[in-house]
């Protein structure tokens, strides 16, 4: 059994990572081809940094990810608080079910439904909605919301009620109690919701495909366009870079947590 475990785990992980590693390796390929390797070179990375469309897409992706995850976290955190404090059972249950719809629905249905909404909205004359930046922000916020609430609400539910009551006893208004006691307790959940929304927005393709316009491209849309035409080899350099960035993000978020715990243990 142990032998099996020792073989199986590395095997599957290697197979899982093989295409990614190959792409990263071949992004340095002088020959500019995916079928034979001819020498190590950074030309494709140089080409990438001169490609205005790619850089614009990068900027758009970052802007979108930050804005949509911040809005989603703001709305979602307050929503989680409101749901947690809600006394009418059926209402809180209903809200949670409806919140989960974008998460349960396949991406294509969410994308298509939002596109239809925007098509109708665009046809209303006095509404300043156009396909592009605005619609993308709305769409990305919408699909990040359920994940934020999913990260934050459990923290509220696991919170120590007595701390809040102590604060209230000591003279805080409910609002002050929220900001001084409840919010800090829930902060880890908020941060993870924020990171989750950020990553989801960076990676999203299907929903963006339906909701965007040619002048607001994000990185996945840029890659999709490339793969539908003659692929510029610098696209592989872009993919390799994205992998590196996400790797760093992932390790930072996960291992920062352990570092923090070790510090606390030392002080304890």
């Amino acid at each position, binding site marked *: 059994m142990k032998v099996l475990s020792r073989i199986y785990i590395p095997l599957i992980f290697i197979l899982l990572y093989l295409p990614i590693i190959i792409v990263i390796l071949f992004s340095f390929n002088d020959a500019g081809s995916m*079928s034979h390797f001819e020498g190590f070179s950074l030309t494709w990375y140089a080409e990438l940094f001169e490609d205005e469309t790619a850089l614009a897409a990068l900027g758009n992706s970052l802007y979108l990810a930050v804005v949509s995850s911040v809005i989603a976290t703001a709305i979602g955190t307050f929503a989680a608080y409101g749901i947690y404090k809600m006394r009418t059972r059926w209402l809180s249950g209903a809200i949670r079910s409806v919140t989960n719809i974008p998460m349960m629905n396949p991406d294509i249905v969410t994308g298509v439904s939002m596109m239809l909404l925007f098509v109708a909205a665009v046809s209303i004359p006095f509404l300043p909605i156009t396909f592009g930046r605005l619609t993308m922000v709305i769409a990305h916020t919408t699909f990040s919301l359920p994940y934020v609430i999913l990260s934050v609400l459990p923290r509220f539910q696991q919170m120590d009620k007595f701390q809040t009551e102590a604060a209230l006893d000591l003279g805080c208004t409910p609002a002050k109690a929220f900001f001084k006691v409840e919010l800090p307790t829930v902060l880890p959940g908020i941060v993870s919701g924020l990171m989750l929304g950020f990553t989801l927005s960076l990676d999203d393709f299907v929903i963006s495909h339906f909701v965007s316009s040619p002048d607001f491209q994000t990185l996945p849309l840029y*890659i999709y366009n490339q793969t539908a035409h003659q692929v510029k080899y610098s696209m592989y350099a872009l993919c390799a870079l994205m992998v590196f960035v996400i790797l760093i993000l992932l390790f930072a978020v996960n291992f920062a947590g352990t570092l923090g715990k070790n510090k606390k243990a030392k002080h304890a």
Partner: protein
Amino acid sequence: MRKKSFIEGFAAVPHIVWLFLFVVLPLVFVVYFAFTGADGSFSFSNIANLSRYGHIFVLSICFALIATVLCLLIGYPLAYFMSRLKPKTQKMLVVLLMLPMWISLLIRTYSLMAILDNGGLLNSLLESLGITRVHIVGTPGAVILGMVYDFLPYMVLPIYTSLSKLDIRYYEAANDLGASNAKTLFKVAIPLSLPGVISGITMVFVPSISTFYISQKLGGGLFDLIGDTIEREFQNKSTYNIGAAISLVMMILILISVAIMNRFSEGDDSEGGIIV
């Protein structure tokens, strides 16, 4: 009970408004378009036309089913082995498992295609070894391979989470009572991790049935699935209606399947789960 403060009462209001505008309303539009003809009048013609797409639904379900079963067969052992390792190793493996999930589907799928293509890396290697080329891209097998490759982490993670929460004493007890390792797996681990399995199945089945990029790139556009069809219908204003009808049916289908699967997950909880 004290009165609700302002912040407590209204904290959820922005969210409710947002939900209504951007979750409920769009779905209402889908229903509206599904039941509307090209001229804007109410009509059942779209629903009637759906019979033309019946075999596409069946095909998509078949592909998704096979992909899900494969993910389960490959993913369960991985999750099980991972859950029996040392906690530190486990944590690192989890992070390594999550990385592909966070890399965009596009990159993973396209890299797979570039490697498996007739003129790609795999075939170049085979040719240099003197073996004939394998024709993978453009076959149904490639599409299923793509689905399994893309969605495997989504299957493994919930199962692993479920298994890692299991008290290790269950395994010890089973061993004490004379069960071999294999028997422990089948009679203890699997039943107790069923909620995770159900979750994993859902997380693979739903995207598999609605994907279009995988079938476009790895299938060469030769096997149009539901996702491809919907995407094609929404390229032209005149076909929005039929596209909406197809989306509606797919959404309902998925809702029903997920509801059925959740039923099974709940049923086991109430019984305790270990088969004597």
